């Protein structure tokens, strides 16, 4: 059996005595879409940062494939980062305001030695892959909407063809109609490229639509995890049930609200 793509084993992250992440264990298999769902202070973002080497790990180990990557020097990390990229929450700070879209997308390629011409044409292809028009390649991000900026950020994350992309609330800052499009894009990219996605979100319903597995976190701890259908349709933990109940489906809500009056009438 092949090793999982990435694995956290009892990982803790501590800031001045406060445990932002408390002995979390989770893993992502190649080609899987895993959702980490939780509210503010749940430690979900800290888990991502721990994986990427952006947060200090006080306990536990992180494995990428067979390799232990818990504590690495920057030069060694750069090698791991070729295979593991990140997308951020806020589309207005994800892209450099003074560079063109193609330049932002091509940046990782050039940093790893690709020549400018090849990098640029790959950048254009990536922009097409994420649903943007390659003719926009030389534009600046100023004219783009939030959803479009996130697509560019995704294109940049794909540049080095990583096997895993972690995303920190990538849809939270987007309009309702755009959220679904970006979620569908993740699914599509997984099918086409086989890239695994680890997506952090506060939106259980959104994750239930695209994730294979869901991990529920609260106050730095993992509360429940399993196949998405199991966690969402038959949650075992009270907190997960509360998260479920907090998702307001308009039609469900109306049915619940107005069934009484129908009976009364």
């Amino acid at each position, binding site marked *: 059996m092949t090793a999982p793509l990435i694995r956290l084993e009892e990982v803790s992250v501590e800031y001045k005595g406060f445990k932002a992440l408390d002995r979390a264990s989770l893993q992502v298999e190649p080609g899987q879409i895993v959702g980490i769902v939780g509210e503010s202070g749940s430690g979900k973002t800290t888990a991502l940062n721990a994986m*990427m080497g*952006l947060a200090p790990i006080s306990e536990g180990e992180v494995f990428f494939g067979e390799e232990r990557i818990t504590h690495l020097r920057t030069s060694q990390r*750069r090698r791991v*980062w*070729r295979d593991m*990229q*990140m997308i*951020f*929450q*806020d589309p*207005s*700070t*994800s*892209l*450099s*305001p*003074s*560079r063109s879209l193609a330049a*932002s997308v091509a*940046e*990782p390629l050039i*940093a*790893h030695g690709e020549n400018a011409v090849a990098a640029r044409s790959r950048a254009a292809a990536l922009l097409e892959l994420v649903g943007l028009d390659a003719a926009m390649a030389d534009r600046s*991000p*100023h004219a783009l909407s*939030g959803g479009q*900026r996130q697509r560019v*950020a995704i294109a*940049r*994350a794909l*540049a*080095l063809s990583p096997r895993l992309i972690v995303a920190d609330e990538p849809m939270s800052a987007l309009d309702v109609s755009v959220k679904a499009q970006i979620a569908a894009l993740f699914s599509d990219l997984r099918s086409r490229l086989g890239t695994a996605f680890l997506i952090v979100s506060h939106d259980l319903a959104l994750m239930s639509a695209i994730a294979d597995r869901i991990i529920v976190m609260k106050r730095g701890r993992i509360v429940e995890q399993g196949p998405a259908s199991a966690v969402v349709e038959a949650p075992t933990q009270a907190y997960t049930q509360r998260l479920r109940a907090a998702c307001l489906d308009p039609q469900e809500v109306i049915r619940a609200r107005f069934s009484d009056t129908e009976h009364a009438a």
Partner: protein
Amino acid sequence: MIRRALGPVGIASAVSFAIAVVAVAIVLSGNLNADLNLDDRLTGPSGRAWFGSDQLGRPVLARVIAGAPWSLGVALAANAISLCIGVVLGLLAAEFAGAPRRIILQVVNLTLSFPGLVAAMAAVAVLGQSAMAVILVLGLLAWPLFARVVYAEALSARERPYLIAARIGGVGRVTQVYRHILPVLLPSLIAMTAFHFADMLIAASALSFLGVGAPLGSPAWGAMLAESRPYLFQAPWMLIGPAFALATTVLLLNLCGDALARRLGGRRRTELRR
């Protein structure tokens, strides 16, 4: 209001035009001659000397023009030195947490508390009355102003997601700095440089006023101000000439710096709107 109406391009061209006109007029009228003329001592403004002449009969205007290179040159050089040192140290402090940062910040504090005048006098004692002494002293004492601003802004720029994305993408430290951090710093740096130039000019003039740095008899503006003191009531134009030059230059620098920063830097380069 004038500022807003003209813009930096407008101001720059207006100023250049004015300077050109005045320069041509000066050359044509023969007012450039700063030689002694003991017959003409302490006379008021006249055809030969538009700004009158001083106690040795030298035309004030000519001397002001002659003194410009010293004053402006010293200020510019000191500005350049403190800019370079300040930016480099500020960036290093932001990039390397731990010991380097602590050390640099301590040096900043130490330098700021250093007594400027004493240092200037010591430099002159060692290097003699020279522009170099003043340049060194001003440059080496003023860099913390740049360093602090650069440190603070670079520190926050480092946390921006596109910087982190660059790091994760494998971009090297140096490239991160000039491609992503410097553009963010640019508006502040440009404005600071213009204002700082003005400050260095005032500082250099203050030193030459006190007789530090400019050799005796030099037409440096501060020195001219000092020379004008005994003749204040007899020949007030001896004060007005250099004072006017100094004040106007400082004012123009501040206005330009302001307008430049707004135009060149601007939000377009430093952040995206939501």
